[in-house]
Protein backbone atom coordinates (compact mmCIF):
# COMPACT_ATOMS: atom_id res chain seq x y z
CA UNK A 1 0.00 0.00 0.00
CA UNK A 2 3.04 2.22 -0.30
CA UNK A 3 1.68 3.72 -3.51
CA UNK A 4 -1.40 5.31 -1.95
CA UNK A 5 -0.28 8.67 -0.54
CA UNK A 6 -3.72 9.58 0.81
CA UNK A 7 -3.97 6.39 2.86
CA UNK A 8 -0.41 6.85 4.11
CA UNK A 9 -0.92 10.44 5.20
CA UNK A 10 -4.33 9.86 6.74
CA UNK A 11 -3.20 6.84 8.74
CA UNK A 12 -0.13 8.72 9.93
CA UNK A 13 -2.47 11.42 11.18
CA UNK A 14 -4.94 9.01 12.78
CA UNK A 15 -2.62 6.47 14.45
CA UNK A 16 -1.46 8.78 17.29
CA UNK A 17 -5.06 9.52 18.18
CA UNK A 18 -5.97 5.82 18.13
CA UNK A 19 -3.08 5.14 20.50
CA UNK A 20 -4.09 8.05 22.73
CA UNK A 21 -7.69 6.82 22.79
CA UNK A 22 -6.47 3.32 23.66
CA UNK A 23 -4.46 4.69 26.59
CA UNK A 24 -7.47 6.77 27.68
CA UNK A 25 -9.72 3.72 27.63
CA UNK A 26 -7.08 1.79 29.58
CA UNK A 27 -6.29 4.25 32.33
CA UNK A 28 -9.66 5.96 32.57
CA UNK A 29 -11.47 2.62 32.58
CA UNK A 30 -12.22 2.77 36.30
CA UNK A 31 -14.06 6.08 35.85
CA UNK A 32 -15.62 5.81 32.40
CA UNK A 33 -16.51 2.98 30.07
CA UNK A 34 -13.64 0.73 29.08
CA UNK A 35 -10.89 -1.33 30.64
CA UNK A 36 -8.09 -3.65 29.70
CA UNK A 37 -9.86 -5.74 27.05
CA UNK A 38 -11.16 -2.75 25.13
CA UNK A 39 -7.92 -0.80 25.41
CA UNK A 40 -5.93 -3.83 24.31
CA UNK A 41 -7.84 -4.33 21.08
CA UNK A 42 -7.77 -0.59 20.32
CA UNK A 43 -3.98 -0.42 20.79
CA UNK A 44 -3.51 -3.58 18.72
CA UNK A 45 -5.67 -2.21 15.92
CA UNK A 46 -3.46 0.88 15.79
CA UNK A 47 -0.40 -1.37 15.37
CA UNK A 48 -2.23 -3.46 12.75
CA UNK A 49 -3.21 -0.35 10.79
CA UNK A 50 0.43 0.75 10.80
CA UNK A 51 1.50 -2.69 9.60
CA UNK A 52 -1.12 -2.74 6.84
CA UNK A 53 -0.12 0.63 5.45
CA UNK A 54 3.65 0.69 5.96
CA UNK A 55 4.46 -3.01 5.76
CA UNK A 56 5.33 -5.68 8.31
CA UNK A 57 9.04 -4.85 8.70
CA UNK A 58 8.15 -1.25 9.58
CA UNK A 59 5.72 -2.21 12.35
CA UNK A 60 8.12 -4.84 13.63
CA UNK A 61 10.77 -2.17 14.10
CA UNK A 62 8.31 -0.44 16.43
CA UNK A 63 7.02 -3.57 18.19
CA UNK A 64 9.52 -6.41 17.73
CA UNK A 65 7.94 -9.90 17.85
CA UNK A 66 10.48 -10.98 20.45
CA UNK A 67 9.18 -8.32 22.83
CA UNK A 68 5.51 -8.88 21.96
CA UNK A 69 5.68 -12.62 22.60
CA UNK A 70 7.06 -11.97 26.07
CA UNK A 71 4.38 -9.37 26.78
CA UNK A 72 1.72 -12.07 26.23
CA UNK A 73 2.93 -13.80 29.38
CA UNK A 74 3.84 -10.60 31.23
CA UNK A 75 0.24 -9.38 31.34
CA UNK A 76 -1.03 -12.58 32.96
CA UNK A 77 1.92 -12.45 35.36
CA UNK A 78 1.04 -8.88 36.40
CA UNK A 79 -2.56 -9.94 37.04
CA UNK A 80 -1.73 -13.09 38.99
CA UNK A 81 1.19 -11.31 40.67
CA UNK A 82 -1.19 -8.67 42.02
CA UNK A 83 -3.20 -11.48 43.58
CA UNK A 84 -0.13 -13.10 45.11
CA UNK A 85 1.08 -9.73 46.36
CA UNK A 86 -2.21 -9.15 48.17
CA UNK A 87 -1.98 -12.52 49.92
CA UNK A 88 1.61 -11.80 50.95
CA UNK A 89 0.96 -8.26 52.19
CA UNK A 90 -2.21 -9.04 54.11
CA UNK A 91 -4.76 -6.51 55.32
CA UNK A 92 -4.97 -4.53 58.53
CA UNK A 93 -7.76 -5.72 60.76
CA UNK A 94 -8.29 -4.39 64.30
CA UNK A 95 -4.85 -2.86 64.28
CA UNK A 96 -2.98 -6.05 63.33
CA UNK A 97 -2.00 -7.62 60.01
CA UNK A 98 -4.11 -10.61 58.99
CA UNK A 99 -3.63 -12.64 55.80
CA UNK A 100 -5.70 -11.33 52.88
CA UNK A 101 -7.42 -13.35 50.15
CA UNK A 102 -6.09 -13.72 46.63
CA UNK A 103 -6.93 -10.49 44.74
CA UNK A 104 -8.19 -8.76 47.89
CA UNK A 105 -7.16 -5.24 46.96
CA UNK A 106 -7.75 -3.85 50.44
CA UNK A 107 -4.23 -5.15 51.13
CA UNK A 108 -2.87 -2.52 48.75
CA UNK A 109 -3.88 0.38 51.01
CA UNK A 110 -1.00 2.74 51.67
CA UNK A 111 -0.48 6.34 52.72
CA UNK A 112 2.24 7.44 50.28
CA UNK A 113 1.14 10.67 48.55
CA UNK A 114 -2.43 10.22 49.72
CA UNK A 115 -5.00 11.56 47.27
CA UNK A 116 -2.50 11.60 44.42
CA UNK A 117 -1.41 7.99 43.92
CA UNK A 118 -4.17 5.39 43.66
CA UNK A 119 -4.37 2.99 46.58
CA UNK A 120 -6.44 0.10 47.86
CA UNK A 121 -9.23 -1.07 45.55
CA UNK A 122 -8.33 1.59 43.00
CA UNK A 123 -4.69 0.50 42.76
CA UNK A 124 -5.68 -3.16 42.53
CA UNK A 125 -8.14 -2.54 39.71
CA UNK A 126 -5.58 -0.35 37.95
CA UNK A 127 -2.93 -3.11 38.12
CA UNK A 128 -5.11 -5.98 36.95
CA UNK A 129 -6.60 -3.93 34.11
CA UNK A 130 -3.06 -3.02 33.10
CA UNK A 131 -2.16 -6.71 32.97
CA UNK A 132 -5.24 -7.52 30.90
CA UNK A 133 -4.43 -4.67 28.51
CA UNK A 134 -0.86 -5.87 27.97
CA UNK A 135 -1.91 -9.46 27.28
CA UNK A 136 -4.71 -8.53 24.89
CA UNK A 137 -2.54 -6.08 22.93
CA UNK A 138 0.27 -8.61 22.66
CA UNK A 139 -1.94 -11.55 21.64
CA UNK A 140 -3.76 -9.56 18.95
CA UNK A 141 -0.52 -8.14 17.57
CA UNK A 142 1.19 -11.51 17.57
CA UNK A 143 -1.72 -13.17 15.73
CA UNK A 144 -1.49 -10.36 13.17
CA UNK A 145 2.26 -10.90 12.71
CA UNK A 146 1.94 -14.66 12.23
CA UNK A 147 -1.13 -14.43 10.03
CA UNK A 148 0.10 -11.63 7.79
CA UNK A 149 3.42 -13.33 7.17
CA UNK A 150 1.68 -16.30 5.60
CA UNK A 151 -0.24 -14.46 2.91
CA UNK A 152 1.25 -13.60 -0.46
CA UNK A 153 -0.47 -10.23 -0.30
CA UNK A 154 1.89 -8.90 2.31
CA UNK A 155 5.03 -10.63 1.14
CA UNK A 156 4.62 -9.17 -2.33
CA UNK A 157 3.99 -5.75 -0.92
CA UNK A 158 6.98 -5.95 1.37
CA UNK A 159 9.28 -6.94 -1.45
CA UNK A 160 7.91 -4.28 -3.82
Amino acid at each position, binding site marked *: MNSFPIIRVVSKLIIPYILLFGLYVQFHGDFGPGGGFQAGVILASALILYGLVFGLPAVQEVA*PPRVIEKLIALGVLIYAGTGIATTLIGRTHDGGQVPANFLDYEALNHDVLHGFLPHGQ*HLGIFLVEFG*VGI*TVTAVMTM*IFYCFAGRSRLFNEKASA
Partner: protein
Amino acid sequence: MFVSVSILTLLAVTAIAIARMRDLWAAVMFTGIFSFLGASWMLILDAPDVAFTEAAVGAGISTFLMLGTLALAGKKEKPTTASPIVPLLVVGITGAALVYGTLDMPHFGDPAAPVQTRIEPGFVEKSQHDMHGLPNVVTALLASYRGYDTLGETAVIFTAGIAVLMILRRDPEDCDHRVTQKSASTEKKGRSS
Protein backbone atom coordinates in the same frame (compact mmCIF):
# COMPACT_ATOMS: atom_id res chain seq x y z
CA MET B 1 -36.85 4.82 18.07
CA PHE B 2 -36.16 5.95 14.51
CA VAL B 3 -32.42 5.36 14.93
CA SER B 4 -32.96 1.89 16.40
CA VAL B 5 -35.30 0.86 13.62
CA SER B 6 -33.01 2.15 10.88
CA ILE B 7 -29.91 0.48 12.36
CA LEU B 8 -31.72 -2.84 12.78
CA THR B 9 -33.04 -2.59 9.21
CA LEU B 10 -29.55 -1.88 7.92
CA LEU B 11 -28.24 -4.88 9.91
CA ALA B 12 -30.81 -7.14 8.27
CA VAL B 13 -30.11 -5.72 4.80
CA THR B 14 -26.36 -6.21 5.27
CA ALA B 15 -26.85 -9.77 6.46
CA ILE B 16 -28.97 -10.64 3.42
CA ALA B 17 -26.48 -8.92 1.11
CA ILE B 18 -23.62 -10.99 2.60
CA ALA B 19 -25.61 -14.20 2.16
CA ARG B 20 -26.34 -13.46 -1.51
CA MET B 21 -22.85 -12.31 -2.42
CA ARG B 22 -20.49 -14.53 -4.42
CA ASP B 23 -17.48 -12.19 -4.33
CA LEU B 24 -15.80 -13.12 -1.05
CA TRP B 25 -13.69 -9.97 -0.94
CA ALA B 26 -16.80 -7.78 -0.93
CA ALA B 27 -18.49 -10.15 1.54
CA VAL B 28 -15.64 -9.67 4.02
CA MET B 29 -15.97 -5.91 3.68
CA PHE B 30 -19.69 -6.23 4.33
CA THR B 31 -19.06 -8.24 7.50
CA GLY B 32 -16.94 -5.28 8.63
CA ILE B 33 -19.87 -2.96 7.94
CA PHE B 34 -22.14 -5.38 9.80
CA SER B 35 -19.85 -5.17 12.83
CA PHE B 36 -19.83 -1.38 12.73
CA LEU B 37 -23.62 -1.33 12.63
CA GLY B 38 -23.59 -3.79 15.52
CA ALA B 39 -21.28 -1.47 17.45
CA SER B 40 -23.64 1.47 16.84
CA TRP B 41 -26.51 -0.67 18.07
CA MET B 42 -24.59 -1.52 21.28
CA LEU B 43 -24.00 2.20 21.78
CA ILE B 44 -27.75 2.87 21.57
CA LEU B 45 -28.26 0.15 24.19
CA ASP B 46 -25.92 2.11 26.53
CA ALA B 47 -23.11 -0.45 26.34
CA PRO B 48 -20.11 1.59 25.16
CA ASP B 49 -17.64 -1.05 26.43
CA VAL B 50 -19.16 -3.69 24.17
CA ALA B 51 -19.34 -1.18 21.32
CA PHE B 52 -15.57 -0.49 21.61
CA THR B 53 -14.81 -4.18 21.49
CA GLU B 54 -17.19 -4.87 18.60
CA ALA B 55 -15.76 -1.99 16.56
CA ALA B 56 -12.12 -2.89 17.20
CA VAL B 57 -12.36 -6.70 17.03
CA GLY B 58 -15.33 -7.26 14.73
CA ALA B 59 -14.78 -4.49 12.25
CA GLY B 60 -11.02 -4.13 12.53
CA ILE B 61 -9.03 -7.19 13.49
CA SER B 62 -11.30 -10.01 12.31
CA THR B 63 -11.93 -8.28 8.97
CA PHE B 64 -8.19 -8.11 8.50
CA LEU B 65 -7.76 -11.79 9.44
CA MET B 66 -10.45 -12.75 6.91
CA LEU B 67 -8.68 -10.69 4.23
CA GLY B 68 -5.42 -12.42 5.06
CA THR B 69 -7.17 -15.77 4.66
CA LEU B 70 -8.65 -14.70 1.32
CA ALA B 71 -5.22 -13.71 0.06
CA LEU B 72 -4.22 -17.35 0.67
CA ALA B 73 -7.44 -19.01 -0.44
CA GLY B 74 -8.63 -16.99 -3.44
CA LYS B 75 -11.44 -14.50 -3.53
CA LYS B 76 -14.16 -16.25 -5.54
CA GLU B 77 -16.66 -18.63 -4.00
CA LYS B 78 -17.00 -21.92 -5.85
CA PRO B 79 -20.45 -22.25 -7.46
CA THR B 80 -22.51 -24.76 -5.52
CA THR B 81 -24.44 -27.54 -7.24
CA ALA B 82 -26.26 -28.92 -4.18
CA SER B 83 -29.89 -27.98 -3.69
CA PRO B 84 -30.43 -25.10 -1.24
CA ILE B 85 -33.64 -26.52 0.22
CA VAL B 86 -32.20 -28.53 3.13
CA PRO B 87 -29.90 -25.72 4.38
CA LEU B 88 -32.79 -23.27 4.00
CA LEU B 89 -35.02 -25.52 6.10
CA VAL B 90 -32.38 -25.91 8.81
CA VAL B 91 -31.77 -22.16 8.96
CA GLY B 92 -35.47 -21.39 8.92
CA ILE B 93 -36.28 -23.80 11.74
CA THR B 94 -33.34 -22.59 13.86
CA GLY B 95 -34.32 -18.96 13.31
CA ALA B 96 -37.95 -19.66 14.19
CA ALA B 97 -36.83 -21.45 17.37
CA LEU B 98 -34.67 -18.47 18.35
CA VAL B 99 -37.49 -16.00 17.73
CA TYR B 100 -39.85 -18.25 19.71
CA GLY B 101 -37.33 -18.22 22.54
CA THR B 102 -37.37 -14.41 22.72
CA LEU B 103 -41.18 -14.19 22.88
CA ASP B 104 -41.43 -14.49 26.65
CA MET B 105 -38.41 -12.29 27.32
CA PRO B 106 -39.12 -8.93 29.00
CA HIS B 107 -39.14 -5.85 26.79
CA PHE B 108 -36.07 -3.63 26.57
CA GLY B 109 -35.90 -1.37 29.62
CA ASP B 110 -38.84 -3.08 31.34
CA PRO B 111 -38.64 -2.12 35.05
CA ALA B 112 -40.23 -5.45 36.03
CA ALA B 113 -37.55 -7.48 34.21
CA PRO B 114 -35.63 -9.95 36.42
CA VAL B 115 -32.36 -8.16 35.70
CA GLN B 116 -33.80 -5.01 37.33
CA THR B 117 -35.52 -6.70 40.27
CA ARG B 118 -33.54 -9.79 41.22
CA ILE B 119 -30.13 -8.18 41.66
CA GLU B 120 -29.92 -6.42 44.97
CA PRO B 121 -31.11 -2.85 44.28
CA GLY B 122 -28.51 -1.35 46.60
CA PHE B 123 -25.64 -2.75 44.60
CA VAL B 124 -24.68 0.58 43.05
CA GLU B 125 -24.53 2.31 46.43
CA LYS B 126 -22.75 -0.65 48.04
CA SER B 127 -20.02 -0.59 45.42
CA GLN B 128 -19.50 3.12 46.14
CA HIS B 129 -18.69 2.21 49.73
CA ASP B 130 -16.67 -0.94 48.96
CA MET B 131 -14.63 0.70 46.21
CA HIS B 132 -14.05 3.93 48.16
CA GLY B 133 -15.85 6.08 45.62
CA LEU B 134 -14.76 4.48 42.37
CA PRO B 135 -17.61 5.57 40.11
CA ASN B 136 -17.65 2.79 37.48
CA VAL B 137 -19.69 -0.12 38.81
CA VAL B 138 -18.98 -2.25 35.73
CA THR B 139 -15.22 -2.05 36.26
CA ALA B 140 -15.65 -2.65 39.98
CA LEU B 141 -17.63 -5.80 39.23
CA LEU B 142 -15.23 -7.06 36.57
CA ALA B 143 -11.95 -6.37 38.25
CA SER B 144 -12.72 -6.53 41.96
CA TYR B 145 -15.89 -8.44 42.88
CA ARG B 146 -15.30 -10.89 40.04
CA GLY B 147 -11.52 -10.68 39.98
CA TYR B 148 -11.13 -14.46 39.68
CA ASP B 149 -13.35 -14.59 36.58
CA THR B 150 -11.38 -11.87 34.86
CA LEU B 151 -8.13 -13.62 35.71
CA GLY B 152 -9.59 -16.72 34.06
CA GLU B 153 -10.60 -14.71 30.98
CA THR B 154 -7.11 -13.29 30.71
CA ALA B 155 -5.72 -16.80 30.96
CA VAL B 156 -8.08 -17.85 28.13
CA ILE B 157 -6.73 -15.08 25.89
CA PHE B 158 -3.20 -16.04 26.86
CA THR B 159 -3.86 -19.68 26.00
CA ALA B 160 -5.47 -18.75 22.68
CA GLY B 161 -2.48 -16.61 21.76
CA ILE B 162 -0.03 -19.36 22.67
CA ALA B 163 -2.07 -21.90 20.69
CA VAL B 164 -2.01 -19.71 17.58
CA LEU B 165 1.74 -19.29 17.98
CA MET B 166 2.20 -23.05 18.31
CA ILE B 167 0.21 -23.73 15.14
CA LEU B 168 1.47 -20.96 12.89
CA ARG B 169 5.05 -20.64 14.01
CA ARG B 170 7.26 -23.64 13.39
CA ASP B 171 10.51 -21.88 14.07
CA PRO B 172 11.16 -18.97 16.41
CA GLU B 173 11.86 -16.57 13.58
CA ASP B 174 8.80 -17.41 11.47
CA CYS B 175 6.80 -14.40 12.56
CA ASP B 176 9.70 -11.95 12.46
CA HIS B 177 9.55 -10.49 8.99
CA ARG B 178 12.63 -8.38 9.42
CA VAL B 179 14.65 -11.59 9.77
CA THR B 180 12.92 -13.48 6.94
CA GLN B 181 13.31 -10.48 4.64
CA LYS B 182 16.98 -10.11 5.42
CA SER B 183 17.63 -13.78 4.77
CA ALA B 184 15.61 -13.61 1.55
CA SER B 185 17.56 -10.59 0.30
CA THR B 186 20.92 -12.17 1.15
CA GLU B 187 19.82 -15.29 -0.72
CA LYS B 188 18.99 -13.18 -3.75
CA LYS B 189 22.32 -11.41 -3.55
CA GLY B 190 24.12 -14.73 -3.26
CA ARG B 191 22.31 -16.05 -6.31
CA SER B 192 22.97 -12.98 -8.45
CA SER B 193 26.68 -12.78 -7.65
